[in-house]
């Protein structure tokens, strides 16, 4: 059954445009692979892609001096188009001094509070979305490659356990939709592998860009489960697991999805 479906998918894949190949790595497929032609076209055109509003705004935040230290991001990191290339595709990372993982949003807030002496951004706030999108966008086209060895391992394992754990009144784990039934039709939607390489993603349903953790919270609530807070350890661990699961996929930030 599963084999037949895979062969079917391979045949369908054959008929697709060549660009789709860039969004798949062996069995690993970006959500782009299942997006409609209209959505793909919107993502592929920087002028039509509404996520670029946040890229643009992020570039302004990059140079904006804030906080008591009188610094902007660029005071230390200079030109993001050079310094931030190949950074976000390796996050989350294990931080020895913290004894846990840190993701891009948390790194941005650490820089703000510790070095800029500025206030931390709220997670899903406009400036946080803008800066995260801008930073991740600098790695667009680079493969996701996170480190899960050594001290990161146990956080990866925790993320994996979360992924496979049933939750909510619907009693479903992430894997029931995004692994066991990826590519399947759920009502009017196609279930994707739930890959993280396009985040922050402009979602047509949201009418704006949103973080990966917002998506986690939405999924949790859909199965009638209590969501975790933005930036919760559970979600950062899950982020590491998902990114590793999507190893080799290219960063698409800002992706466009339904």
């Amino acid at each position: 059954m599963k084999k037949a479906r895979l062969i079917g998918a391979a045949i369908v894949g054959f008929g697709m445009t060549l660009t789709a190949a860039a969004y798949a790595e062996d069995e690993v497929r970006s959500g782009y692979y299942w997006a409609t032609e209209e959505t793909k076209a919107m993502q592929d055109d920087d002028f039509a892609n509404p996520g670029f509003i946040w890229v643009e705004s992020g570039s302004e935040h990059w140079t904006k001096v804030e906080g008591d230290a009188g610094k902007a991001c660029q005071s230390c990191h200079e030109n993001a188009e050079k310094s931030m290339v190949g950074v976000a595709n390796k996050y989350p990372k294990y931080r020895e001094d913290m004894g846990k993982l840190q993701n891009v949003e948390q790194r941005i807030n650490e820089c703000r509070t510790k070095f800029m002496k500025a206030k931390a951004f709220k997670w899903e706030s406009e400036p946080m979305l803008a800066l995260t999108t801008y930073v991740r966008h600098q790695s667009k086209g680079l493969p996701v490659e996170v480190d899960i060895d050594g001290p990161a391992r146990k956080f990866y394992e925790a993320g994996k356990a979360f992924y496979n754990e049933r939750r909510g009144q619907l009693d479903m784990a992430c894997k029931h939709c995004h692994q066991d039934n990826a590519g399947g039709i759920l009502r009017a939607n196609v279930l994707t592998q739930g890959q993280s390489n396009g985040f922050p993603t402009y979602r047509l349903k949201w009418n704006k860009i949103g973080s990966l953790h917002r998506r986690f919270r939405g999924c949790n609530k859909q199965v009638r489960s209590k969501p975790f807070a933005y930036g919760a350890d559970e979600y950062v661990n899950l982020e590491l697991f998902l990114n590793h699961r999507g190893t080799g996929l290219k960063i698409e930030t800002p992706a466009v999805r339904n």
Partner: protein
Amino acid sequence: MNRGRILGLATALVFASGAALADGVKDVSTTYKVVDDTIPQSLTGKPGDPVKGRKIAINRKKGNCLACHQMPIPEQPFHGEISPDLSGVAERYTAAEIRMRIVDPKVLNEDTIMPSFYRNNGFHRVLKKFQGKTMLSAQEVEDVLAYLMTLKDE
């Protein structure tokens, strides 16, 4: 302490990851009997209404069967395709077998994606407003079952 309480305690221990039911909330799994992976007895003793059952099957906040299953409900577009087609399901299973599958399909397949529509215990991190509640009432289960039993033509 009566026998039922002891049984309830054992159930709670088995589902250690699930939050305990609030005081006065009954674990519905103690209200029916599973026989050879079937539930032969009606949950309510009252016949199900197939017309209501069809509506519950469509309702996204109730059965939402169409999310995953194809069904002979032509007026509804976009039927799911990840689970078996339910056309003719009454030819393939008895009412007792289907009742088990609606109530708690994990008894038959512990890895299934299908929710347990008549269970209220042993879940993990349920949103507060759904805690201690079943997805369908006992009568709604019987209604959906009555509807499914009308699906005889392949």
